[in-house]
């Protein structure tokens, strides 16, 4: 189906974007990669009267480390992360995720920030952002604010980005030494949304005890969810099979998926646990600790 008619504006600067968004308020939507918005418009699930295309804002296409953070600009596409040497060497959690979102052609258009703003309950980036303790920088005509990912993901398809606002970038803290992560996803076929997914980020100290833990699951609630009970169990402990099993059980207990043609509630709850276990084992394995399987 064709989308309903709309007015198209190609923004040439951040200020112009903000002015257009302020002028059109609730009628306007930002158009980034279009890989979620255009399908939604074609199915008439979205009928924005005005689109503000930000694809020409090349100044928003970057991956850069500054102030102990990795900043990913609003026009940085998934494929840029997938092919980045910096991401491959220092951000394994992001590297894993960028290779599993959608399919390789969609990744040449879709953006990380657009995916977070879309906030699909089965989306991949929200899960990784929670485990990685990301922050989103949001700007409107009167100023800029930074929102923790936990406060950014408000409800299915709803975020802290309000009318007249543009998400400028997402920031991930640069991992301290002896930190690794992993993203795990079950999908029916390439390019499908997750049946279940999980992200883990682990920091070990010199004695091999866990000094930092981030755990999150996807496709198991209204949006990606942090598994705080698992994080608390892991914090300060030494990795063992029993510990990982307990963390996985915490994810099973938290998961509240809906049954669909990807699986039953029972199956998806179990997979949330299985994938948290796999993500933890893979992350810790990347730090050279084996024998947890």
């Amino acid at each position: 189906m064709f989308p309903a008619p709309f007015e198209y504006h190609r923004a040439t600067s951040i200020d112009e974007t903000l002015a257009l968004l302020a002028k059109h308020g609730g009628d306007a939507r930002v158009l980034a990669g279009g890989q979620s918005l255009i399908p939604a418009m074609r199915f008439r699930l979205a009928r924005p009267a005005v689109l503000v295309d930000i694809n020409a804002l090349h100044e928003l296409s970057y991956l850069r480390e500054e102030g102990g953070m990795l900043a990913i600009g609003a026009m940085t596409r998934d494929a840029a992360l997938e092919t980045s040497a910096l991401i491959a060497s220092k951000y394994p959690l992001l590297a894993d995720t960028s290779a599993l979102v959608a399919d390789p052609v969609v990744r040449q258009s879709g953006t990380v920030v657009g995916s977070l703003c879309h906030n699909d309950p089965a989306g991949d980036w929200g899960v990784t952002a929670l485990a990685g303790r990301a922050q989103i920088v949001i700007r409107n005509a009167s100023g800029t604010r930074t929102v923790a990912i936990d406060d950014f993901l408000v409800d299915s398809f709803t975020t802290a980005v309000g009318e007249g606002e543009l998400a400028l970038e997402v920031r991930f803290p640069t991992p301290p030494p002896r930190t690794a992560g992993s993203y795990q996803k079950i999908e029916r076929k390439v390019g499908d949304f997750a049946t279940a997914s999980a992200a883990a980020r682990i920091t070990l100290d010199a004695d091999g005890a866990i000094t930092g833990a981030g755990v999150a699951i996807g496709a198991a609630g209204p949006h990606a969810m942090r598994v705080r009970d698992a994080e608390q169990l892991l914090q300060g402990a030494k990795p063992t099979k029993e510990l990982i099993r307990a963390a996985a059980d915490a994810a099973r207990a938290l998961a509240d998926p809906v049954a669909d043609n990807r699986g039953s509630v029972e199956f998806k709850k179990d997979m949330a646990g299985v994938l948290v276990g796999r993500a933890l084992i893979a992350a810790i394995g990347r730090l050279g600790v084996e024998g947890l399987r």
Partner: protein
Amino acid sequence: MNISVTVNGKPYQRDVEPRTLLVYFLREALGLTGTHVGCDTSSCGVCVVVLDGDRAVKSCTMFAAMADGHEITTVEGLVQGGKLHPLQQAFWDCHGLQCGYCTPGMLMTSYALLKHQPNPDEPAIREALSGNLCRCTGYQNIVKAVQQAAAETNAPAPEPVAT
């Protein structure tokens, strides 16, 4: 609105509705029907064209307005001077197509892949094409064709024959 695009090296100016999808612009406004429509919901990859020389995009999931000022390469643009592109020749040689419906998308996705990775190994080719569906071939010969095209493109040019 009025847009200017360069398709296969040729400039075009047309009036479009903002909601016109790129694939329908190419097929209906420009008559370039080599780009196919399959699922029409961004899932099958038959509509892939190349934007600005090296980015594969699903033209059913992009507005023509977004292409204003950009360069597009479609399957019609692969032939150079009446000679098939090495990818096209390899698809022919390796039987990389049967009904041919998926072929334009396979060719253009592979074309973008070779721009980024001139020498992809088999897993890289399979990965790059994993969003493009083919109902006929079972993919084996498509992968072989891309391997052959990559090998040929990378082979040193033959010495000019003295006359």
